[in-house]
């Protein structure tokens, strides 16, 4: 099974700091990582490869430095990665990003499956995965918690993949024909750590770098200019809610705090119905 995993390099979320004056993210000194939710996609792909053979290739769109993300994926066990980077791609929204990555995937050649993370932790839209499926006209399953291959060598007319989607009502079961695209959630698999051997391989790996000239691209579909959506304003909401904080360090204080909490909930009409007068 030949699998492609589109990944994104994102700022480390655990220490995002905001400039209180400008309301922008302080990028200086903030490290970058592979989007944590993409690690689940990489892991799911590696396990499919281990069970059914084939290859796992990652692709990312970003600045030159995003090459590091591809090397991290190789260190985990991926076979290779493609970097798509060009100033013409800057400022892409999700429509444009999914277009550009789709064109790169077309150039990458034959594949059976695309596994993507559910969303990226910075943009947080979850729109690029479904967008790629739409561009490439691939059967799509999102929020996938379990993947099962029914027929690894299935002709494309057969439904060869069974997945479980974690949705509001439960786990929805879908069967899909291959090639297909799935986006996965944490439950699909716990990501492995890079191995020493993997790290060595990743250092030596050749990473193809493709710019706008290297792919078949419609120029009016690219970058900020091609993006249907435009950001018009960015504001910083107030960080705290300025709520009531009570200290309850002995029995009496606990009883008093709970009393006040009940009063607070009653005021907001949040008490259980049968608890009301």
């Amino acid at each position: 099974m030949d699998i492609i995993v589109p990944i994104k390099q994102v700022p480390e979320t655990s220490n995002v700091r905001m400039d209180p004056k400008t309301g922008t993210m302080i990028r200086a000194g903030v490290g970058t990582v592979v989007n944590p939710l993409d690690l689940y996609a990489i892991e799911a792909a590696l396990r499919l490869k281990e069970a059914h053979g084939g290859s796992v290739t990652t692709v990312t769109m970003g600045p030159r430095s995003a090459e590091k993300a591809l090397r991290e994926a190789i260190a985990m066990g991926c076979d290779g990665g493609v970097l798509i980077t060009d100033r013409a791609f800057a400022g892409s929204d999700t429509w444009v990003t999914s277009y550009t990555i789709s064109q790169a995937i077309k150039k990458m050649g034959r594949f059976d499956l695309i596994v993507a993370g559910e969303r990226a932790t910075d943009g947080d839209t979850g729109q690029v995965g479904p967008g790629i499926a739409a561009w490439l006209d691939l059967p799509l399953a999102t929020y996938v918690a379990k993947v099962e291959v029914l027929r690894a060598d299935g002709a494309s007319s057969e439904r060869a993949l069974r997945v479980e989607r974690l949705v509001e009502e439960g786990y929805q079961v879908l069967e899909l024909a291959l090639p297909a695209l799935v986006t996965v959630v944490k439950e699909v698999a716990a990501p492995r750590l890079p191995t020493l051997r993997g790290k060595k391989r990743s250092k030596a790996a050749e990473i193809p770098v493709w710019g706008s000239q290297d792919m078949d691209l419609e120029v009016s579909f690219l970058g900020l200019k091609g993006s249907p959506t435009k950001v018009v304003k960015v504001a910083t909401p107030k960080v705290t809610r300025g709520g009531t904080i009570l200290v309850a360090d002995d029995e009496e204080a606990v009883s008093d705090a709970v009393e006040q909490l009940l009063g607070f909930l009653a005021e907001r009409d949040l008490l259980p119905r049968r608890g009301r007068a």
Partner: protein
Amino acid sequence: MSFVWTLAEQHAGRLKEVSFELLSRGRTLADKLDTKLASLVIGDEVDDEQLQELVWRGADEVYSIQDPRLASFVCETYSNLLSHLVKTYQPSVILAAATSTGRTLMPHVAVRVHAGLTADCTELDIEEGTGNLLQTRPAIGGNIMATIKTPDHRPQMATVRPKSSRPLPQDRSRVGKVIAVPLDDWLVDERVVAKGYRSDVQDFVNLEEAEVVVAGGRGMKRAEHFGLLRALAEEFGGAVGATRDAVDRGWIGYPHQVGLSGKTISPRLYVGAGISGAIQHLAGIKTSETIVSINSDPDASLHKVADFGIVGDLFQVLEELRRRLAETSPGEQGTAGRDAGSEK
């Protein structure tokens, strides 16, 4: 005249609450644009009374596309259908719920109709003069609010967080058209087949639609202690949530996990017990209407975003809370809570 559309959502023939929430958003926009509001129902066996309720709660027109092949959400067929309707009727705005369905269908359709799409909006407005839709959404883990518009493309598409608005009251004097639209065979994509839902799942929880979520973290110390939270959740007719740490320790299942790598929720009331309030957890709860925090550490981050915080031992506080709630409702123990999960 280009309409405003909302996508109603159904499960097993029942319209979800969010279908009506979207109409109250859509009504405001349609009035500002001086146009009509239509609600699309894609599904199966949604009865006439429910279709009528969409009119009573704000729709001028209801397009009802019902077919056994639409009973469960399958993106390809839904997308073929919606893209076809968009190309035919050219609405100016489409709102859908930021649910597993809306967040899958909308980006798929946006690509195919060359439209701009904004995810997870918390505010929507119309720009004066241009009539453009102004879409505001939290970004970077809720640290900033970004306002986005789509000046040159139609429709303008947005997903909206469930529970971020209230449905309009039913106005039975409102009149509107309910129009049945057939599903043409060529729109059905047979490459994907829905096989129903897994039936062997223990303790599943519909967190996204719960009005009240009582969540526990590492401070709960043991799986058995989640029974305290289940009892409280049941009392409130709510559901039990958890942090990643609690889930990874095996105290409770992954469907309960809230946060960056779990579910995003906006209940009316969120109560967090023994939860530090890491940024990845907060990302999943920030748009909750009311946040209550119970944590012995006065410096816990969850206290900082709470509307009401108690610095104390969670076991004492939860025990007292349960005792007091039981007092106010003598003799009425144990009415069923919605989705409160299985009992220990």
